[in-house]
């Protein structure tokens, strides 16, 4: 009962139950052409970019920070990749290099944020606000506000392909999750991040490299956002600098909070954030399937944010 993952899991279970009773065939999974299909698969697939963003955001929030530029980075990375690959059936730049360039740009954005917060001591919301404004503008500049369609087939695999019967995007999330979870387990990264988030003064006096840690979490967040951007871009087979990743940072923050990580920093849960992302996606899907206008989603999200924050206050 007291396990920190209890609440998010209970919430997810409750949602799935509601979906089960209100949406016919919600839990059915069929196999076609060796691929698994079904509502559940759909949910997980669509949640993949959010899961990535939430993973990155978790570590930033754990250090008492916040990154509201995530959406802009998503737009930027998709744009860089699409522009480099070009609109023809053959890639203008080898796809591998295009993807690397996009990821590099995303990581650079994270570095920018991290340096502003760690060395200049800017408030995280202020520092990331700058990139939120300028980053999307940069993406829009590069595409001149137009949607850049990609026709290079291999690019679609990232967002739309299948691997072992499941959407490839899942595998990507699984790999990133495994990598960061491994780092948490095998190294002292988790301990250090928590220490910095709970008491940065004591952490410094104990000999931790607080500045380096803070820069790292922002770079990781940027990279995750970049990967999410590639996924989104691949999914819609184009780069939409205007709309890609719009409001994603808000969903990511919500996912992290739902997963049990406190906005005040300190202890965090990567699994919780993933569950949080699934909750949000299940909510969206259920609302959509029930024929309720999807915008009602926003009202529900708002109420959920209030409730989660209030419950965090009473718990602490």
């Amino acid at each position, binding site marked *: 009962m007291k396990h920190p993952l209890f609440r998010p899991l209970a919430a997810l279970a409750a949602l799935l139950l509601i979906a089960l009773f209100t949406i016919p065939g919600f839990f059915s999974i069929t196999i076609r052409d060796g691929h698994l299909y079904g509502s559940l698969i759909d949910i997980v697939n669509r949640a993949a970019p959010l899961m990535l963003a939430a993973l990155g955001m978790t570590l930033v929030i754990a250090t008492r920070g916040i990154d509201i530029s995530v959406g802009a980075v998503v737009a930027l990375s998709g744009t860089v990749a699409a522009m480099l690959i070009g609109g023809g059936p053959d890639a203008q730049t080898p796809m591998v290099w295009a993807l690397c360039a996009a990821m590099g740009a995303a990581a650079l954005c994270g570095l920018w944020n991290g340096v502003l917060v760690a060395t200049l001591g800017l408030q995280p919301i202020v520092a990331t606000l700058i990139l939120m404004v300028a980053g999307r503008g940069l993406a829009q500049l590069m595409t001149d506000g137009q949607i850049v369609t990609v026709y290079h087939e291999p690019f679609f695999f990232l967002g739309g392909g299948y691997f072992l019967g499941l959407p490839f995007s899942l595998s990507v999330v699984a790999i990133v999750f495994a990598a960061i979870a491994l780092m948490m387990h095998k190294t002292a990264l988790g301990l250090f991040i928590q220490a910095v988030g*709970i008491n940065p003064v004591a952490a410094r006096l104990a000999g931790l490299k607080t500045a380096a840690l803070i820069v790292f979490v922002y770079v990781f967040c940027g990279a995750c956002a970049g990967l999410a951007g590639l996924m989104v871009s691949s999914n819609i087979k184009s780069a939409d600098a205007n709309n890609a990743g719009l409001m994603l940072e808000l969903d990511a923050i919500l996912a992290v909070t739902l997963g049990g990580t406190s906005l005040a920093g300190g202890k965090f849960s990567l699994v919780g954030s993933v569950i949080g992302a699934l909750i949000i996606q299940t909510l969206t899907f259920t609302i959509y399937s029930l024929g309720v206008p999807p915008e009602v989603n926003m009202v529900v999200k708002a109420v959920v944010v209030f409730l989660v924050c209030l419950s965090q206050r009473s718990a602490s």
Partner: protein
Amino acid sequence: MKPVLELQGISKSFPGVKALSDVALRLYPGEVHTLMGQNGAGKSTLIKVLTGVYAPDSGTITMEGEQIRPASTQDAQRLGISTVYQEVNLCPNLSVAENIFIGRYPRKFGMVDWRAMRTQAAALLEQLEVRIDVSAQLSSYPLAIQQMVAISRALNISARVLILDEPTSSLDEAEVQLLFRVLSKLRGQGMAILFVTHFLDQTYAISDRITVMRNGEREGEYACSALTRLALVNKMIGAPEASEQLAQQAKAATPGPVFLQARALARKGALLPLDLDIREGEMLGLCGLLGSGRTETARLLFGADKADAGSIRVGERAFPFASPRDAIEQGIGFCSEDRKHEGAILALSVRENLILALQARQGLLRAIPFKVQQAMALDYVQKLGIKTADIETPIGSLSGGNQQKVLLARWLATAPRMLILDEPTRGIDVRAKQEIMDYVSGLCRKGMAILFISSELPEVLRCSDRLLVMRDRKGCGEFQRGELDETSVLHVIAGGAQ
């Protein structure tokens, strides 16, 4: 003459600690009454009870004969008790005039009347003989002037009792004189002033009467003229009247070569140039009153603060300690006196807190295996007698004393060559104190250099091989083990004329 303010039988407890125990205080009109005591003596808790921040568990507060029970700072203010704090508690971004009148602006046609505000503010400050541009921002003035503004505000709200909580900690000599002129004037006008400080010279310069607090109790109330410096210092930090005599320390082994040498180490506003040597296997005690610069010295030696001048040599080479990592690399560890804010990472477990410094030194990638962490934690729990349900319980749920032991273990785990302990036994019961100091002395004899800072003189005298006395942010005397006797040390600490 009857007292304006009288406290009787005031007690206040918090979970795990009795902050005030049956404290009495009397304030008469037209006097400056100084409240003295070391950290943890209960001064600030008493002030908080007086100003309505805390409600006492028992006891009465009487003002001009009537019992009062201030429930908040506004309440206390309305009752006539005004407080000026060390950090001034004004709004730095607003003008001087505005700060004086916040919440009570002079109005004209319902609007804030700036001209009247400025004129009245200037007049109020004139009464304190302070003439400044009242429309300038408060933060553009030094702290001393800001305090004058705070005092003006307090007076304007018609205070009958003025409490000044450590007002002189950040002031220079001239500014202190200015403050004292103002206080004398107010005293002459019949104001009852409660002055909290730890500076001996100032106490003797301004006080009429002194109340000494120690360990949450009122040690006594004295007329200033009747209490010598020596006696006062003795009451604050000397051998307590009826306390258990701690076992005498066995003679220490002869110390080895010099481990660390500091020359002309200084930092603006914290420490005047200081020379310090410490040898391997030596316990160097650092004593003095609160504010004498002991913690500042420790922080400079650990790299927690960066020195403005001077050098630190470890072995042959000089190292600029720009951050704690530099010092840790040289094998130095530091147990801060503020364990809650600078030591314990409250939400993390005992085990995690314990291995933190060692892990930090090993780096991110080479994680200490869980089993090794457990073994280490259990080992120290046993060695230091840490009372905890489990090594996985959050350190925040341990008592202060046990938290301190965990933090000590944190540094011991790094096998340091030198350990700086700043008030390691504060808030710990007598037996645990003995346990810790015996353990630490044992380490010392095995070759660790230890810099030991404490406010409790008997403890420092008992354990140190050498003793460095500090006063007013500089070193002012050194004693070898053979010369250590309480009276002579107290003399040096007290300083000045008897």
